[in-house]
């Protein structure tokens, strides 16, 4: 059998898919980024016919005292929230995973609840419970006890920390699970008591994880919009995110140049932090699988303290998570919520009827569901292909995919929204997409590309590459290998990635805030609209609907499909 020597095949579907991944990941970043850069040099709004280039947007902003004040305030807020979230998260992780704390299994599930709740909902929940007119606040006040001011720096810090604790907790927990138990056994053999072991060995071993999740939380807090907006807006507190929001949405004369400059500033700041975080990741053995079945050292005995400590943890969960969320659910079923009127005597469906009788509000719920189901489905397939191109091909552009897939991490949601909005305004031909769910879905996929990509990639890297080599030698193309071997093996990871993406899309509000219009409302945007109109009860109803759908997704996927959601 003879063959004519042929040069590298000119056309192959492998290359088509791999090139598409490069083009799509680059486009997803460049498309919303360039109008912002462009606008930052324009004297007038970018849709204006006159195009005068100027640096005055920058000089004006740098000379603006308010900007510097807000920057300092945002930094202080992000750092304070991070420290609080880390301290509580790590303490809880050690107590729940390494001590004989009563009820620790039960607590470990409850502690992570805020992870699945939108920060917007959490902000509303705390407002309804602990705000100046909150159920809890009034109750305490009538008992003639001292109260607090939630609408303050520390109020915002505490609520933000509540939102981030599940992250720091989960990160410390997975790091504890990965650490070699023999290191702790060695300390015990060397004469350390269990308590000394935890203090001198266990927690210091967490240092890389602590540093990593500290940066993660700081980045997240810098761009957080909802909690500062809901709790700080009325009392004149601004962070960079709420400042952009106020400039762009609330402000009488929208200063496009100023928005662009602040946005660029935030993106650069976050880029630096994300870069540092990337540096840390390489130092860390994140993808090392748990080795062996070495027995864990005996759990630390809390002794007589254990009842008291358990009660404290229980109180934290009750006051911080359960009561605020219960409060907002209850409020959705009453005309008004007050400690002076028995809510169970005035239960009603009115608030829900109000939502569903308005076509616009009803549509925001169905839109959110559509985006969660379809955009997340298409998104996870795209992210899996991107990850396989990045980590499982010899394609020359694979490193581009690797970096571009993670770079959207540097774009806060509100800036993604602005970027897409302006891009749709500027580019002829695509403008008709602007008011559709397609535009919204693309923006959502861009925003969550890093999340989905990094949810799938560890699983991709754990599959032995001999499995795909065997398929290639056996006669399969790269795409054939992806279809017949890799995707089927990765199915559990894809499924849990899909659920995580669907929940994130359901919760997302910041991306949609600028981008939405008649017909492309989502739950988050409607909540903010209603909140601005002062409708606490309809907001509670929407929050409850969002939590119910999330709970349905979580229970459906974990119980029925056996999906693991935070096996980080």
């Amino acid at each position, binding site marked *: *059998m*003879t*063959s004519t*020597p*042929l*040069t*590298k*095949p000119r056309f192959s579907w492998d290359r088509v898919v791999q090139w598409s991944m490069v083009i799509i990941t680059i486009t997803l970043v460049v498309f919303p980024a360039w109008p912002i850069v462009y606008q930052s040099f324009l004297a007038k709004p970018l849709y204006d016919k006159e195009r005068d280039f100027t640096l005055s947007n920058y000089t004006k902003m740098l000379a603006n005292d308010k900007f510097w004040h807000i920057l300092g305030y945002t930094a202080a807020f992000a750092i304070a929230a991070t420290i609080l979230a880390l301290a509580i998260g790590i303490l809880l992780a050690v107590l729940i995973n390494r001590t004989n704390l009563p009820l620790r299994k039960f607590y470990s599930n409850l502690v992570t609840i805020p992870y699945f709740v939108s920060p917007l909902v959490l902000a509303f929940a705390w407002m309804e419970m602990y705000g100046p007119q909150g159920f809890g606040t009034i109750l305490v006040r009538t008992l003639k006890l001292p109260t607090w001011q939630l609408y303050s720096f520390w109020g915002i810090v505490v609520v933000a920390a509540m939102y981030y604790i599940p992250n720091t907790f989960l990160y410390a927990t997975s790091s504890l699970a990965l650490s070699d138990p023999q290191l702790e056994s060695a300390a015990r053999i060397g004469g350390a008591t269990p308590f000394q072991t935890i203090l001198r060995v266990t927690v210091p071993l967490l240092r890389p994880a602590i540093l990593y999740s500290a940066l993660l939380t700081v980045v997240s807090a810098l761009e957080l919009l909802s909690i500062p907006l809901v709790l700080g807006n009325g009392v004149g507190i601004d962070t960079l995110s709420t400042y952009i929001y106020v400039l762009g949405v609330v402000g009488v004369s929208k200063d496009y140049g100023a928005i662009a400059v602040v946005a660029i500033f935030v993106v650069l700041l976050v880029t630096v932090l994300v870069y540092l975080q990337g540096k840390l990741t390489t130092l860390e053995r994140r993808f090392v699988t748990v080795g062996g079945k070495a027995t864990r050292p005996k759990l630390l005995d809390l002794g007589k303290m254990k009842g008291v400590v358990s009660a404290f943890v229980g109180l934290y969960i009750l006051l911080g998570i359960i009561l605020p969320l219960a409060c907002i659910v209850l409020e959705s079923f009453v005309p008004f919520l007050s400690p002076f009127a028995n809510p169970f005597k005035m239960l009603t469906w009115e608030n829900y009827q109000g939502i569903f009788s308005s076509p616009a509000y009803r549509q925001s719920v169905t839109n959110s569901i559509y985006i969660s189901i379809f955009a997340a489905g298409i998104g996870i397939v795209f992210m899996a292909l991107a990850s396989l191109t990045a980590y499982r091909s*010899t394609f020359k552009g694979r490193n581009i995919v690797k970096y571009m897939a993670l770079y959207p991490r540097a774009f806060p949601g509100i800036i993604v929204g602005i970027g897409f909005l302006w891009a749709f305004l500027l580019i002829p031909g695509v403008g008709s997409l602007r008011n559709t769910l397609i535009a919204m879905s693309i923006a959502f996929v861009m925003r969550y590309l890093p999340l989905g990509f990094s949810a799938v990639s560890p699983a991709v890297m754990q599959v*032995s590459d*001999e*499995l795909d*080599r*065997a*398929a*290639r*030698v*056996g*006669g*399969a*193309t790269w795409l*054939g290998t992806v279809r*017949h*071997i890799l995707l*089927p*093996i990765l*199915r559990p990871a894809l499924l849990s990635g899909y659920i995580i993406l669907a929940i994130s899309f359901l919760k997302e509000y910041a991306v949609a805030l600028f981008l939405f219009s008649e017909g492309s409302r989502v739950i988050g945007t409607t909540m903010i609209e209603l909140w601005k109109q002062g409708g606490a009860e309809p907001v509670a109803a929407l929050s409850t609907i969002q939590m119910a759908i999330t709970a349905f997704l979580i229970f459906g996927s974990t119980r029925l499909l056996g999906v693991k959601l935070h096996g980080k």
Partner: protein
Amino acid sequence: MENNLIIQNLTKQFAGVSSVAISNVNLTVKEGSLTTLLGPSGCGKSTTLNCIAGLEEPTQGVIRVGDFVMTDIGKGVLLPPEQRQLGMVFQSYALWPHMKVFDNVAFSLKLQKVRGDELKKRVMDSLDLVGLADLADRYPFQLSGGQQQRVALARAVVTRPRLLLLDEPLSNLDAKIREQARVWVRELQQRVGITTVYVTHDQSEAFAMSDMIAVMNKGELLQFAPPNELYSNPATQFVAEFIGATSFLKGVIASMDGSRLTVRVANGDILKLTDRSSKSWSVNQNVTIAIRSERVEMAGAQRDGNILNAGVKSSTYLGSKWQHVVDTGSGSLKVESVDAATSDRMSLYLPPDSILLFPEEK
């Protein structure tokens, strides 16, 4: 035209690494024979195999089977792995965990559009060949290591490939099963009559299975020869050292008479030897002589010369024999014996035919 595997001038340099992974390797594997690539880890044997498979892109060189050119970098030919029509067994076996044994074996045939009874027959024939036809409905995780390895082999030969590539396929097996596996892999290879390239770092495996052995080190092919020749006439000091327990002594050539030479070692003892290499030597040249521990004899009987008196430094009992390290005054020698050493001195006879000669290495 014979369908030999021909490798010409194969060179591979990884980007950003100054040393080459493979340097100008030339090799011809006869149709139907089994050639082993042998060497320590990092010697380039696996890289060579991956270049044959098309899993790695060489910097230079030609790889073809008869007229079927798979790689010719000069002419811009580089077939992707799936177009090379090969079979390969991996170190981890690489059985796809989501497919049953039958589907693992059937995978390539299905890609070739083999369907129905024909598919079933060929898959079962192949599983019969490795004696696992009754396990066709199992999943890989339900099989033992040895069974998985046989399924991997069945999968590799089911398409009647041009070449069978084996990448340390026995290294994950227990010592006992590994020896059995050697025998039947070799039997199967001979029964199917498939041209095979086998990669291992285990010299006894290489000796037990191969028609030809290619010894590699630091990316270079040092010697390509049948096992017995490799043993009796290693081309370089590295090959002699890598194959078997070999000791080296430094010396100077004292006299020459054709292929008969004498070498003076450090303490003045003269050793006679017969040189079988085709190297040229000169009197007073610095050389290294090598002798395998199993060839050194305890000098009980009368011998005409080639006797070294040595003090025993250590003795280790290995179960079937003893291994001693002795000091000859000219360097250390490893020596084997059936019985324990009776005193702390021994006199050793080095048969002239068993002494190997190498130029002194810097």
